[in-house]
């Protein structure tokens, strides 16, 4: 089979066998949820509930705080016990959160819903916006904005991202096998909104069953493109290149080459909102890693504390482990939490618990491996060097802002250089020095 792919990339151990055979199960409802008002890129939402107020499942508790922002809903039925700022590592700053004590089973507050074909494009976009849907692959970009590009951008292709190139994670894989009908409805809705006819789904070749299954199931509707199993195959620009052969220009967006990329779980959420009226209050995620007793795939309410998930769904951490690293997301791009009570957010596609290993590094030996693997054609060793020397302008000249922070360079480096750490910091400082512009 000739598999579509991109230039560069790495082959970390996949570790998907821990959870890929396990069907998605419904988590029992947690007694307490902590819902951040920032569940998306852009401006935080503004809380619209007060302490002591009763809320229903699906009721709006936060309204968009700007054009790029999103609604936030109550994931349970109960009473608001606190509205306060909580510092957290996901956004690197304190963010307002609404704490809700659950008091009963779900009493839903639904959105207007029904047969999607009867809704106009504008109505559909409005439902998606009101449902608080954001990119569930991890980027958390508000979906109603992404599906509504400026008039001058001609969109001709919709690409569904089913690559799931992050090691360990299997939720998208399970979604494709278990929820293909719902996802297809979501795709049809997105197609209608965008007015496109070309729809592809890219799936890495390590998910043969999903490739074969969807080829049959979605015949004539969505073109299934098997992709080479290589990290970061699911990164937006690399995925678009693999499927269409088009390169998103430097500093540009997929819409600049007429493409919109959407994750499979996002398509499912769209169907839930439009057809069933359910706002985004729960999502599927993979609970996995060597440190957890029982890996699996779960439907979990947004705002559920990770400690609760680990105890109640994962049966706790294995005994005898001294150190554990708990990641929101997969091991390549995931965020290590510093507090187990951190609640999950909309973009959380996995919780990966690793047993950390110490590795000793040296100076860069100029082996050029990082240059060879960088999917963006950058020179990671040079970015690291310039970043450490605080030569930010020079770093930008050689592509600092083009880095997608995939971590391929640090993965492969024999000297164990932490390029991504330096690059993230350099970007931050550079942007701060530029007054937030550019």
């Amino acid at each position: 089979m000739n598999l579509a792919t991109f230039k560069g990339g790495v082959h970390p151990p996949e570790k998907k066998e821990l959870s890929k055979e396990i069907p998605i199960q419904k988590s029992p409802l947690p007694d307490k949820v902590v819902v951040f008002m920032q569940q998306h890129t852009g401006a935080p939402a503004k809380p619209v509930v007060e302490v002591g107020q009763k809320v229903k499942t699906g009721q709006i508790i936060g309204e968009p705080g700007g054009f790029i922002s999103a609604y936030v809903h109550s994931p349970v039925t109960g009473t608001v016990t606190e509205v306060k700022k909580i510092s957290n590592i996901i956004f690197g700053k304190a963010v307002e959160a609404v704490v809700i004590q659950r008091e009963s089973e779900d009493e839903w507050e639904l959105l207007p819903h029904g047969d999607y074909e009867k809704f106009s494009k504008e109505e559909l976009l409005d439902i998606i916006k009101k449902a608080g849907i954001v990119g569930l692959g991890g980027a958390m970009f508000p979906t109603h904005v992404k599906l509504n590009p400026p008039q001058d951008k001609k969109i001709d292709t919709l690409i569904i991202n089913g690559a799931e190139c992050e090691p360990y994670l299997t939720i998208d894989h399970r979604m494709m096998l278990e929820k293909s009908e719902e996802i297809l409805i979501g795709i049809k809705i997105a197609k209608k909104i965008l007015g496109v006819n070309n729809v592809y789904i890219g799936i890495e070749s390590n998910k043969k069953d999903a490739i074969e299954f969807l080829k049959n199931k979605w015949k004539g509707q969505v073109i299934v493109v098997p992709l080479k199993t290589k990290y970061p195959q699911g990164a937006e620009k690399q995925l678009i290149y693999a499927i269409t052969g088009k390169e998103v220009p430097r500093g540009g967006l997929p819409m600049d080459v007429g493409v919109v990329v959407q994750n499979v779980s996002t398509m499912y959420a769209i169907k839930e909102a439009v057809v069933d009226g359910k706002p985004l209050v729960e999502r599927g995620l993979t609970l996995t890693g060597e440190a957890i007793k029982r890996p699996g795939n779960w439907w979990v309410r947004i705002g559920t504390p990770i400690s609760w998930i680990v105890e109640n769904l994962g049966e706790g951490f294995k005994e005898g482990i001294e150190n554990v690293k708990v990641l929101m997301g997969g091991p390549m791009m995931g965020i290590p939490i510093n507090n187990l009570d951190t609640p999950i957010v909309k973009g959380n596609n996995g919780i990966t618990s690793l047993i950390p290993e110490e590795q000793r590094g040296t100076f860069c030996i100029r082996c050029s491996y990082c240059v060879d693997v960088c999917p963006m054609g950058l020179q990671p060793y040079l970015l690291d060097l310039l970043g450490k020397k605080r030569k930010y302008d020079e770093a930008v000249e050689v592509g600092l802002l083009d880095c997608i922070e995939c971590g391929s360079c640090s993965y492969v480096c024999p000297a164990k250089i932490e390029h991504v750490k330096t690059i993230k910091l350099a970007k931050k400082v550079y942007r701060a020095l530029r007054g937030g512009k550019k």
Partner: protein
Amino acid sequence: MMKLITGNAPHLRSKDTTSKVMIDVIIALIPALIGAWYFFGFYAFFLAILGAVVGEAFELFIMRYLRKDKSFVPNGSAAVTGILLAMNVSPATPWWVMILGLVFALGVAKHAFGGLGMNIFNPALAGRAFLLTSFPVYMTTWYKPALSFSKWIDIQTTATPLAILKEKGFSHMNVSYADLFFGSRAGSIGETSVLLLLIGFAYLVIRGRIKLMIPITYIGTVFLMSSIFYFVSPEKFGTPLFHILSGGLMLGALFMATDMVTSPMTPKGQAIFGIGCGLMTMLIRYFAGYPEGVSLSILLMNAFVPLIDRYTQPRIFGEVKS
């Protein structure tokens, strides 16, 4: 009590390390070293071991006591330098001369420039150049192959094939192509057997430890240049095959010019570097006072690496070709 560890993404790292890279290079040099034992006696082999041991010990001393890095752990790079220096000297070089060269290689060429990864010049070649100027006699006296594993050293001196070409002409050559290929000829400890060098090189290629563009362009350029000059005068300039098989070309192109630290980072840069090495080598062989020019050309090209890196940056994804 279990501890929650944070840290920086990616949280998965390959098992590869700097030491593993160095060990692979050492493994690749072993065939040629065993060959050296057979061709020049056990002393030649001993010099390489000495280079490795003294190199590591000296670097440990530099790091722990002069550069005050108490957490430094040996990584094998100094052993590689020690072995490569031994491979680049004459088989009967006194051991203390070798060690002086090594002290220069590590102390000056490597650590005075900032240590592993910061040095501009290939340390082993810098050490050799230092010895060549300080002990020219030791460095330019060559010995007949002993062809036995049971000898300590053989002290019958002779001229190298390249010197014969330079001084007498190609028709006076006393070795066959087979001798050159298998290694039965006068020369420095590790350079004589093309076959054994290629075996080690193949190992590095399989392990992905080689910037392949360098040997290809280096040897290719030597082949092209010597083909042209062959038509000018075979007697004076020799044949292309002779130039590829003789002197330190194979050792240089396969193992010295490809030193990771002192070579360019992109295939394009590596090609420029390889072509430069090839041109310089042949110009020295043909027109300079020395019969051999491999080491000097690589050292010269080392100096251009920062410049080459600067002008051969890869194309960034999404960059419009201009």
